[in-house]
């Protein structure tokens, strides 16, 4: 894993120091680290001559820019109407049972986090989840168990 300050410096080289560089830089940090540590936000603020509060304010607006500790695999379960009607609750039940954590929590080994998300655009193949950037759709209990087991062994 990168040192945070080096990672931020690399991202600044890539995207510049203008205010509009803030989003791609934050996304770049999350791509490497799963969430924005306080240290990372302070570092970004320093590089872009913003206050840390402004960086936090921006990050906290976006669901996919987490400012709380997250596992290596962030599982986001779609909670919007179609997925909800097609078995979202069961999906969550299975995940909670397998990972022994509740929604919003991270496993002790920092591997998995379960979150709910608003519509991710897979209504036609509901219920759907995202694991990091990969969507899994048309889920059944059996399919989901298989997917999670694969991640567990990775």
């Amino acid at each position, binding site marked *: 894993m990168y040192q945070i300050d080096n990672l931020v410096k690399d991202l600044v080289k890539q995207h510049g120091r203008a205010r509009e560089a803030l989003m791609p830089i934050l996304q770049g940090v999350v791509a490497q680290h799963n969430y924005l540590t*306080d240290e990372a*936000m302070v570092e970004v603020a320093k590089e872009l001559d913003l206050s840390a*509060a*402004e*960086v*936090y*304010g921006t990050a*906290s607006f976006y669901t996919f820019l987490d*400012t709380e500790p997250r596992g290596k695999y962030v599982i986001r379960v779609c909670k919007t109407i179609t997925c909800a009607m097609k078995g979202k609750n069961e999906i969550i039940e299975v995940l909670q049972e397998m990972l022994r954590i509740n929604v919003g929590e991270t496993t002790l080994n920092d591997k998995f986090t379960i979150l709910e998300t608003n519509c991710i655009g897979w209504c036609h193949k509901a219920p759907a989840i995202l694991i990091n950037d990969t969507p899994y759709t048309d889920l059944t209990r059996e399919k989901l168990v298989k997917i999670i087991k694969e991640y567990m062994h990775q």
Partner: protein
Amino acid sequence: MINLTINSKPVSVPEGSTVLKAAEKLNIHIPTLCNHDDLCVVGNCRVCVVEQKGARALIASCAHPATEGMEILTNSLKVRNARKHIVELLLSEHRADCTKCYRNQNCELQTLANAYSYGDHLFINLIKDHEIMIDQTSASIVKDDSKCIRCQRCVRTCAELQKVSALAVSGKGCNQKISTFHDRPLSHVVCTNCGQCIIRCPTGALTEKTQIEQVWDAIYNQGKHVVVQTAPAVRVALGEDLGYDPGERVTGKLVTALRQIGFDSVLDTDFSADLTIMEEGTELLTRLKKVLVDGDKETALPLFTSCSPGWIKFIEHKKPGLIPHLSTCKSPQQMFGVLAKTYYAGKRKLNPADIVSVSIMPCTAKKFEANRPEMRASGYKDVDFVLTTRELAIMIRQSGIDFRALETDNYDSIMGTSTGAGVIFGATGGVMEAALRTAYEIVTGKEVPFKDLNIVPVRGLEGVKEASLKIEGCKKEWAFLEGVELQVAIAHGLTNADKLISKVVSGEASYHFIEIMACPGGCIGGGGQPIPTNNTIRQKRVDAIYAEDMEMKLRKSHDNPEIIAVYKDFLGEPNSHKAHELLHTQYIERIRN
């Protein structure tokens, strides 16, 4: 010009004017809330909505530009209903325990509720008592989110006027709130304590941390000798909180009121402002000598003033590399504090442990400053309690004093005599003017070459001011300054300060002496001053400061007989060893974020 009608009345306004400005021209009142003259337009509270004939939706008059032929209705059924609902929706997210609120009777939301939200309330109250968190960690500012209506005036103030952005908008939708970095306590983030957010907050969400009760306790304690000092900017603003128009000077009544409240000795920060000039003026001349004659590379020029604790904390957080440029002089408040428990205690034969030192300040950052560990040179806490102008107004009302009917009176002695130079500390440019009046005379033996001592180029509300003064006819010991053009600059508001010092750092501009005040207008626009404060009011207070100066018998710090006495009897001479021990301080580097 753009021609439109508002409530069928025709009006012409320059292109780019908002509908709100057009209505003001017709003396038609449209209620506003998030709108503030000092800040950019956001149009997020919607209180100012009006109907545009032919348009489907209502428009926010503060943000919407007037266009040709527009027909605006400010009082139609649609507007009245919408306005009522908007105010009630704001109230549903606001902990409206008005009778217990610090801003009771001086709250813009309360005023709106009083005017527009009578009768049935349609919306349930969304404030959950068990979720209320009040941040009391700061020495200066209390933040209570349960009273926040997210108008973002504080956020805009902190970003636009102060370039600090201690507060930002976080989250979204129903979870939107005004946060520090990761919701850390205010005491642990980059905040200068300037209180400019407080004087723009329309509700009680941001208030000063009050010490009224502690001061009453000290007054009632028979064993304590309670001294009070009043800052220059208080006397030109206090009246506003007691029913006077802005710009009214109440110096004499202020003294009487403080006596009636029960302070044992009513003294003046203007005295220690004069003392600051002696110390800082000497420091400037010493630094000039070190640089120009001795070629000393360690000595930093330009010299920055150090009276404004908001400015000090700004440098400590954001530009610690510039700390050597800061004058080592304590602020007048702290010079007074340390002398009260040493010099004054000795003269009055008092045990300093029995003295309680209170200051009345236009400032919230002064509360933090008084708590700094460096500010105990007397062996005690030099200034025990700091009250804002607003807090003093509350104490005067609590005492049942009929302020208007009070006789005027003079400050006590010792440490109550001052000059016009001390008075003008309250306005931006004032410290510079006072310093020049003294330094020029030290060097040349002559008065500054300006009519009536009024150094007009350093005055006024322009964000950054520059001036130069040619030094001619130097005394022998200052011959190295002969013919030197003394370059000075002044900034007020930390955004302006940041601009100015960036020019210095980049080498784009060079000066000998720079005055910075953290608050727009200087102390007269401080975060502890009466609410509201705006440009018109600031100008009136500035005018009052200079009028007060003109009426003073003495107008140069070095002519103050009590200053001459304190050096003769106690301190020796300016920048003496003892003066350094008591009146000077040092600064520390703080977290950047």
